[in-house]
């Protein structure tokens, strides 16, 4: 298949169209503005709806409306805008509406800056809005995955009637790589008997998240939790690469996984057997595989563009079977391969002084 040179943001937009997205609503914010610009042209060509909303709050509610009628609808934004969308995300989850929300992360808190960051991990994976709910959170690490994940996201959203977030960062949004675009519209018009399309020849359909009668909301929550348990069982995705018998486990997602992949041959050269787990679904998180490997390795090393957010899940997964080390930078600081390597070497030194610790060199 022919390859095209695209930026991550463009690839994501084209991938979404090819996944059958016909409704885009958004509000400008850097570093994702290429997505609405692309959609403004492209959706016109395919007879879709593009609308620049008056705010992120309006945009997510427009998505809510389009999704309620059964359309594949999406919005995209970054930090400050994603914060404004939290109300809408909670309502989408409560009303069980499928939709795609993309966060091309920038530095925070507050207005922060427009440089790459991974500091919205907590917000994406631990709720963000009010109530007991979860989004499925997908973390691409290449322009190819930026192009492919909208399809996966819409399929998962429709399957579970749940909003899905693609959590990228400014590096992935802006960088250019060769990508292969696939045509995969087949699920675009799957049956949605629950959608509001006018009660023609069927009883009334209602989209709602309010349950006032006694016990009703608890029952609704139990139903949601049952759904989340099925997701946890069936939808965990990760990439495991490197040495099949590692003594060091690296854990990183998105663009930081690329940094890890870059330094792994260097670690091999100095005789350190390393493997990498790259979570692809940040929720549901790949706890089990990390727990398994943590029994075999001397230590785990987590790399993030934050002060250690995914780190908490990795620690939870490792169940203290081995020490967990961390390196991260914030506010637009991007860890360079050399500094990460230096950090890992420091840890190797500390760890080699511990009893029972043998690193074969």
């Amino acid at each position, binding site marked *: 298949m022919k390859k095209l040179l695209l930026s991550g943001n463009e690839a994501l937009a084209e991938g979404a169209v090819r996944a059958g997205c*016909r*409704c885009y*609503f958004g509000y400008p914010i850097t570093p994702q503005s290429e997505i609405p610009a692309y959609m403004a042209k492209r959706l016109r060509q395919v007879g879709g*709806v593009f*609308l620049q*909303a*008056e*705010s992120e*709050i*309006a*945009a997510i*509610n*427009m*998505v*809510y*409306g*389009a*999704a*309620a*009628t059964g*359309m594949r*609808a999406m919005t995209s934004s970054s930090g400050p805008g994603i914060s404004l969308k939290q*109300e*809408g995300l909670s*309502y989408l989850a409560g*009303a069980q509406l499928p939709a795609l929300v993309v966060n091309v992360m920038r530095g925070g808190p507050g207005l922060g800056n427009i440089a790459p960051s991974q500091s919205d991990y907590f917000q994406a994976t631990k709720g963000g809005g009010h109530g007991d709910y979860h989004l499925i959170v997908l973390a691409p690490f290449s322009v190819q995955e930026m192009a492919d994940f909208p399809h996966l996201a819409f399929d998962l959203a429709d399957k579970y009637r749940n909003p899905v977030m693609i959590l990228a960062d400014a590096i992935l949004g802006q960088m250019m790589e060769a990508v292969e675009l696939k045509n995969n519209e087949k699920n675009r018009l799957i049956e949605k008997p629950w959608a*509001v*399309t*006018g*009660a*023609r*020849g069927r009883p*009334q*359909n*209602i*989209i*709602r*998240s*309010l349950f*006032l009668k006694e016990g009703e909301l608890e029952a609704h929550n139990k139903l949601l939790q049952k759904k989340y348990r099925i997701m946890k069982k069936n939808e965990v995705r990760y990439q495991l690469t490197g040495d099949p018998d590692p003594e060091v486990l690296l854990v990183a997602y998105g663009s930081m996984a690329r940094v890890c992949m870059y330094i792994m041959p260097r670690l091999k050269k100095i005789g350190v057997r390393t493997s990498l787990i790259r979570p692809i679904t940040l929720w549901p998180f790949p706890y089990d595989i990390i727990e398994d490997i943590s029994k075999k390795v001397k230590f785990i090393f987590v790399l993030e563009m934050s002060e250690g957010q995914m780190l908490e899940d990795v620690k939870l997964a490792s169940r203290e079977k081995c020490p967990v080390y961390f390196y991260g930078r914030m506010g637009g600081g991007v860890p360079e391969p050399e500094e990460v390597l230096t950090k890992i070497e420091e840890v190797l030194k500390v760890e080699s002084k511990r009893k029972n610790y043998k690193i074969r060199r």
Partner: protein
Amino acid sequence: MMRIVYTKPKSMKDVPTHYCPGCGHGIIHRLICEIVDELGIREDLIGICPVGCSVVAYNYFDFDMIEVAHGRAPAVATGVKRSRPDKVVFTYQGDGDLASIGMAEIIHAAARGEAFTVVFVNNAIYGMTGGQMAPTTLLGQKTTTTPFGRDHKMEGYPIKIPELLSSLPGAWYLERVAVNSPGNIRKTKKAIKKAFLTQIEKNKFSLVEVLSPCPTSWRLSPVDAIKWMEEQMIPYYGLGTIKDEGIQVVREK
């Protein structure tokens, strides 16, 4: 021969409502259902109810309904109508909902000329949360958050929404009515019907503000509430057409 002159509209469910005695919501619901039946649009209709006393209107309306967040109905309606332009779409919003938290959404929907209908129920107070000040609360009116009466020096002046929207070319038909008397209820029905026709025939934005009693939060009997409407509310707001670009198809040269 006996003739049925009054019956339940087909698109209204045969259940008692939860509204307080003397509340205007029930009357307005019924008018909407009569219009839906008369226009034969029940099977192409999508209604949108945000938070407020009428948030569970889907218990009474027998057509497709979406319940939405406080103030966001015009944005949701935009998403619905844009993705399904062949459907008839309306929002049913309170004054706290539309004129306070949802002000940005209603202004921009009107500015874009979104082709849906807004039924805007102004009862000059927040009903559902127990009687707090709304942006439409009259000067001097006592509420739980203006216990000494609304003072313009503190809380500003009540907002007239159709007048505010009337400068926007996208707003096609704007009218203010009231449900205080049989005559005015008939006028209310006529206005809401025209608003739906503005959407159906002209594909344009329409809004009908309905002045409506809330005896419970006004702390008045249903009869005194009507009196208060007639003596205070209607004189301040004024009834009638604020803007009408017409639904007759104008032949363009």
